Structure formats: structure tokens, C-alpha cells
């Protein structure tokens, strides 16, 4: 089969791959910040398609509709006629954050008119919802190759939540800056707002190498927007927070940027298409934004506004999957995805410039940690082929290990905010109706932190 590509063609492929990798690998590595807002949110970088979602996201070895253009471009070779896919999603985010209480082990002070009555840290919870057109693609197949164009909404995220301000070890001392420190009596009350949007526009191609093996590549142009603001209010030690005055300072993370990213994939199908194996590497883009810290009108301590460039890093993903199709009606699939979340802490940025504001307190930016994770995806679908139109039922689940930004240093305040969270189990279900030229699919993905509803429609001539 390899003889099908001439030697010169292989040289061209390797040269192009090297060039792309070299060109796309040239970016500065400055990364996320220690703003508390970042502790209360977790991103899932979603793959498209309601059919895919209903299968628990186990799609690498299936990859048989137009969503393959982004998920595993090698799967485009399984598409036999030109087709379109359009998808809309509704996300419901639940944010959990350190809200109030007192660090475990320290007894609350108690007494009249004081909120310091809770032993142990308590999380707060808030919800936000976003709806949008999340995916569109067109696939044009030929005998041995296929091309596709797509638009995919990788992240469409919004968070609005406020924190009460937990009590820490000390009671009397108070950091007038409201920035988490080692000698704090109480964390500042924060009013947080965050919006992040990442949209990918791209093209993908696949080629049949023979013997059931296909290879694919996708090139995406990512468009990024971030708008985050954390207003910091310094409450009385023994009074509830007041979000009207005593704004001591605020921090923003804002910017628009673009970047390129490449994905490569493979798909192998057995002759009878009973078994298939697929794999993908998706390079995550990086985006620059401005991180600012500015004194507020109620500041006790004035300081020069600080502005630094930081980077929002979308982690690289490696994935491999296997699918089993014993009959035309039944499909089962299992994927493992390695997400390089640790990349997000490369060159971590101290948004507050603690070293200048509080020289006795080290910023400890190297003590912020996120672990790489292995996501496990499992899904199954059954199509009622004797029914017309064809009715397909899907179910799946996927395991999302915790990938919260956490702090492992001495700063008690940061330690209280940037804490590990629970691993998440997602449960998915979906249904599809297929006619000769139109398919409609719906799916839901539910976990404690995020629920997503997806509707997609596929068309062919």
C-alpha cells in the first residue's frame, strides 16, 4: 500500500509536516495568572456533533460524519457523498468556588454580629448558561481522498459569581490590598465575571492509504476573546461583604488574539468494518491577553497599575480509540484522551505583582499546578433499521479527572482558593432520526459541573 504514494510524494508530506510543526511551534510561553477567578472555572474543550456527544464522546475510531473534520480528520475517508453538518448547543455551567467559612482545623471566632461561625471552608455555587451555533462543516469526498471545511466553537464560556470571603488562620491582621497572603485574616470578597470564546475555522483532508488505513490532517485558525474582571472588596473583619463600596482594587484579563493549530489523525478499519481503531493529535493554540491590576476608588494602599502579557493556552490532546460493530445496527466505542493541562502553568504570571507590592511575601508562581489527565470515553448506539425513518438510540459516559488549577505553596490565601476539586463523571444520552437525505440528532451530556444539550442536522445530496 505504501507503494501507492511515490517516494517524492512521501518526501513532500514529511517536509510539509515538519514545516507546519516548526511554524506552529514558534510561540512565546507565558501563561495563565493567579487571579482567583481562574480557580472557579473549568474548561472542557468540546468535540462537535450531537451523535458524537450521545456516544460519550467516544468517536475517534468511528469518525464517520462531517464532525470528523475536527475530531479525527482521517475519518473523512469514510464519507462517501458530499454532506453538511450543522449543530447548536446550550451549555449550563455550574461554578464552584471557595466562598466562606474558615480553614479546616481553625475554630471559628463566633460571637454576635460576626459571620465567622462556620468551621471549615465552604464552597459557593453559581450557574450560567450560554447558547450558540457551535459547529458547521461541509465534506467533499472523492475516491481515495476527501476535503472538508468547518467552523467549530471550541469554548463558549461565561461565569458570574461572587464570593463572601473565607476566614483564614489569623483573625486580626488584614491585608489592605485584599490580595491573598500568608498573614490574612480574611479573604477579600470578590465579584467575578468571565467570558471566554474560542472559535476555530479550518480545513481538513484525508487520504486512503490502502488496507483499510486512512490518514488525515486539519489546519485550524483560532479566534480568541477573553474578558475577565474581578472586583476586590475589603470587608470588615466581622461584617458581611458590601459590594457597593470599599473597592480596593480590581484585576482584568482581556484581549483578542488569533493562532493556528494543526491536528493529525489516522483511522484503520477491518475489511468487514467490524473493528476500527483511530487516533489523533490536536495541537492546542496559544493566545496572548493583557493581565492588569488596578487600584480601586476605595483603595487603602495606592499602587501603580500593573499590566503584563499573559497567555491562554489550550492544551494539546493525544487520543486513541477503538470501536466494535458486530452488526449494522449496533456500535460500541471506547476512547482514551490524554489532555496536557500541565501546559497551562508554563510561565505562570503573577497578575498582582506580589513581589513589588509585598516584598516579604514571595509570589510562589511555580507552586501553581495542574495535572495532565486521561479522559476515558465509552459509548454505544443501536439503530432500529427496520423502522422508517431509522431511529437510533445512544448512551455513553466519560470520566473527567479533576484538572483544577491548585496551589501547593505557603500562601494560605491562595491555598484556600486554588484547591483540588472532584473528578467528574459525565453521562450522555442521544437519539437520532435518519431519512435518506437528512439526519437529525439530539444529545445531552450531564455532569455536576456542566450540562450540555446539542442538536445537529446532517444533509446530503
Amino acid at each position: 500500500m505504501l507503494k501507492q504514494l511515490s517516494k517524492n510524494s512521501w518526501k513532500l508530506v514529511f517536509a510539509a509536516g515538519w514545516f507546519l510543526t516548526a511554524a506552529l511551534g514558534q510561540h512565546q510561553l507565558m501563561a495563565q495568572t493567579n487571579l482567583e477567578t481562574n480557580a472557579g472555572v473549568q474548561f472542557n474543550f468540546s468535540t462537535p456533533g450531537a451523535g458524537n456527544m450521545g456516544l460519550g464522546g467516544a468517536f475517534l475510531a468511528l469518525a464517520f460524519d462531517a464532525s470528523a473534520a475536527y475530531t479525527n480528520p482521517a475519518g473523512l475517508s469514510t464519507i462517501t457523498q458530499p454532506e453538511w453538518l450543522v449543530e447548536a448547543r446550550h451549555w449550563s455551567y455550574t461554578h464552584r468556588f471557595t466562598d466562606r467559612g474558615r480553614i479546616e482545623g481553625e475554630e471559628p471566632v463566633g460571637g454576635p454580629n460576626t459571620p465567622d461561625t462556620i468551621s471549615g471552608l465552604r464552597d459557593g455555587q453559581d450557574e450560567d448558561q450560554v447558547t450558540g451555533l457551535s459547529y458547521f462543516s461541509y465534506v467533499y469526498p472523492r475516491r481515495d481522498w476527501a476535503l472538508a471545511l468547518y467552523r467549530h466553537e471550541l469554548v463558549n464560556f461565561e461565569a458570574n459569581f461572587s464570593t463572601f470571603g473565607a476566614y483564614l488562620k489569623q483573625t486580626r491582621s488584614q491585608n489592605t490590598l485584599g490580595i491573598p497572603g500568608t498573614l490574612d485574616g480574611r479573604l477579600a470578597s470578590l465579584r467575578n465575571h468571565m467570558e471566554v470564546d474560542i472559535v476555530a475555522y479550518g480545513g481538513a483532508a484525508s487520504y486512503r492509504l490502502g488496507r483499510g488505513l486512512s490518514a488525515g490532517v486539519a489546519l485550524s485558525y483560532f479566534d480568541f476573546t477573553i474578558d475577565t474582571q474581578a472586583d476586590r472588596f475589603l470587608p470588615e473583619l466581622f461584617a458581611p461583604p458590601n459590594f457597593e463600596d470599599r473597592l480596593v482594587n480590581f484585576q482584568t484579563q482581556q484581549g483578542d488574539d488569533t493562532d493556528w493549530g494543526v491536528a493529525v489523525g489516522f483511522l484503520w478499519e477491518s475489511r468487514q468494518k467490524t473493528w476500527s481503531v483511530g487516533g489523533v493529535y490536536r495541537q492546542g493554540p496559544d493566545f496572548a491577553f493583557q493581565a492588569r491590576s488596578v487600584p480601586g476608588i476605595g483603595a487603602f494602599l495606592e499602587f501603580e497599575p500593573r499590566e503584563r502579557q499573559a497567555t491562554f493556552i489550550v492544551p494539546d490532546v493525544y487520543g486513541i480509540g477503538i470501536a466494535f460493530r458486530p452488526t449494522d445496527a449496533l456500535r460500541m466505542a471506547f476512547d482514551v484522551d490524554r489532555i496536557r493541562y500541565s501546559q497551562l502553568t508554563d510561565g505562570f504570571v503573577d497578575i498582582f505583582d506580589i513581589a513589588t507590592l509585598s516584598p516579604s511575601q514571595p509570589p510562589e508562581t511555580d507552586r501553581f499546578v495542574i495535572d495532565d489527565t486521561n479522559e476515558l470515553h465509552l459509548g454505544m448506539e443501536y439503530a432500529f433499521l427496520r423502522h422508517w425513518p431509522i431511529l437510533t438510540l445512544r448512551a455513553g459516559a466519560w470520566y473527567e479527572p479533576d484538572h483544577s488549577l491548585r496551589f501547593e505553596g505557603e500562601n494560605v490565601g491562595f491555598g484556600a482558593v486554588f484547591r483540588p476539586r472532584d473528578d467528574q463523571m459525565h453521562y450522555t444520552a442521544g437519539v437520532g432520526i435518519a431519512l435518506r437525505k437528512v439526519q437529525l440528532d439530539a444529545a445531552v451530556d450531564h455532569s455536576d459541573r456542566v450540562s450540555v444539550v446539542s442538536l445537529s442536522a446532517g444533509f446530503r445530496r
Partner: protein
Amino acid sequence: MNAQQIGAAMSKTHLWTFFVLALPAAAAAQQAVTHCDKEKAEKARAEFRLAMENREDGEWWDARDAISHLKKAADLCPDPRNLIPPTAPAPFFPKYTYIPFYFLGTCHVSLEEPPDALRYFHLSSCLGEPKRDEDATEDLDALAGGCLKQIVRHQRPNKQPPYFSEGVTAAKTRKEWKRSAERMWDSMQVWPEDGETTLISGRWTEPYVPRLHLAIALFELGCRQQACEQLKRSKLKELAAKDKSGKYDEEHKQMEQLAAKCSALPRTAGPENSWICQQWQCWLQKDRR
């Protein structure tokens, strides 16, 4: 003799005259398709020689290369009629009888492509290659049987033959009628036409009516009579009559269009003479369904 007897005698005479004159014409027409002149025979022999360079000790060491040369030889001269003597690929090499279809079949066997192999073995049988070299082709029936077993072995009652989806794709996307016809025939060796919904790719479906698609492809290839015969044998009409859901609407429309074209064919049209139609005549005779 009365008038009736004279009329009957004249009819018989006319009948005999027809057969005496028409049969050689029909035979000549078939010979015109399968038989080759000296020039084509020489070219075919050259291609055959190049193909046999890939054969050693009964095995093919580059079957793909051999196939490309054997196909050219077979297209130039399917039936050599003593114009091509046994040929050695090189001095001191064994000589091979000119039986390109048999060797094409063995090439596809070595490449584990039993449908293509089976079709070539059928052609070998139809074109009399076993008579040209009984020793070399003594395993022809066994090989053909083995190919059929391999094809049918993958049959699952609840899983469609992959050939059907390849044939539909070849027709609908690329208008590759030859490929489509071959794949529909392959598909029917595995599973008879039953109209059940099958997955073509992804979650897109088609009703399993390979004989209709074979008829359409044959008509596009110019084998109109054979196409119309296959159309009559297709079960689509009775399936569509029983079904109220509309899932056969598209195929029913295609069937009606083809039926109209078949009706417009002149009744006295002779057998199709093109080489491809001759091949299909052979394969349709061997159709196990």
C-alpha cells in the same frame, strides 16, 4: 401438396435460411468481440510476457504489476484462437499458455481479493481457457469454489455485505458504472436482494436492492438487454408495493425510469456485442442467485 403444406414448407425454408445465414453472423459478431487479429495478438503477447515475469514457482511476487499487464493483454485479445503460442517471459524460463483470465484470477487470489478473482475465473471458464491448457487450469473449479466460500464466509444475516455500499458509492458519487455493476454482483453472491435497510456509510442508509442497481449500471454500460432482464428479476417492485412508509420512493422512481427505457428498446434488437456485455453475459450465467 396443398397451399397449407406449401406454406409450411416455405416457412421451414425461411427458418432454415435464417439460421444458416444468421448463426454465422452471430458467431462472427461474437468472434469480432473476443477474437483478435495478428497485430493485437502480438501486442497482447508482449503484455502477457511482461506479466509472466512476475511469476515464479507458481507464485506471484508482484501481483499488481502482473494484473496491469494481464488486463491489457486480455483487453487486446481475450480469445487468441491459436494466434498466441505458449510464451516464456525470458530465455530458459518455462513457457506459459496464453490464459490471461485464469492468471488474473490467481493474481487476485494472492492479493486476497476473492470477488475479483471469482469473476476472472468465471471468464476463464466461459472463454474456454481450460481447453487451451488443461494442466495449468486443472484447479480452476477448486479456486473458484474457494473464492466463493471466502466471499460467503463473511456473510452475516444482520450485517450487510460491504460490496453493496461500495457499489452504491461508485454509482452515485463517481458514476463508475463498471465498478458499481461488479460490486452489485459481488454483493448478491453473499446475500440475496431483500430490500432491508442497510448502512452505506456513517448512519446513512439505502435499501438493499443490488439487482436494481446492477440493472441501472448495465444499462449505462450499454448492455441494455441484460439490464432489462435484471430489472425484471429485481424484487423492488413487490417490495415497494407492500411498503407504505415511502422508504423505497427513490429506488421506485429509478426503476420506473429504467422500465420506460426498456420498453422503448426495439424487440428485434440483437445481443449486445461489446466486450463488456460479453463479460456480463458470462457472469450473469454464473450468478448463484
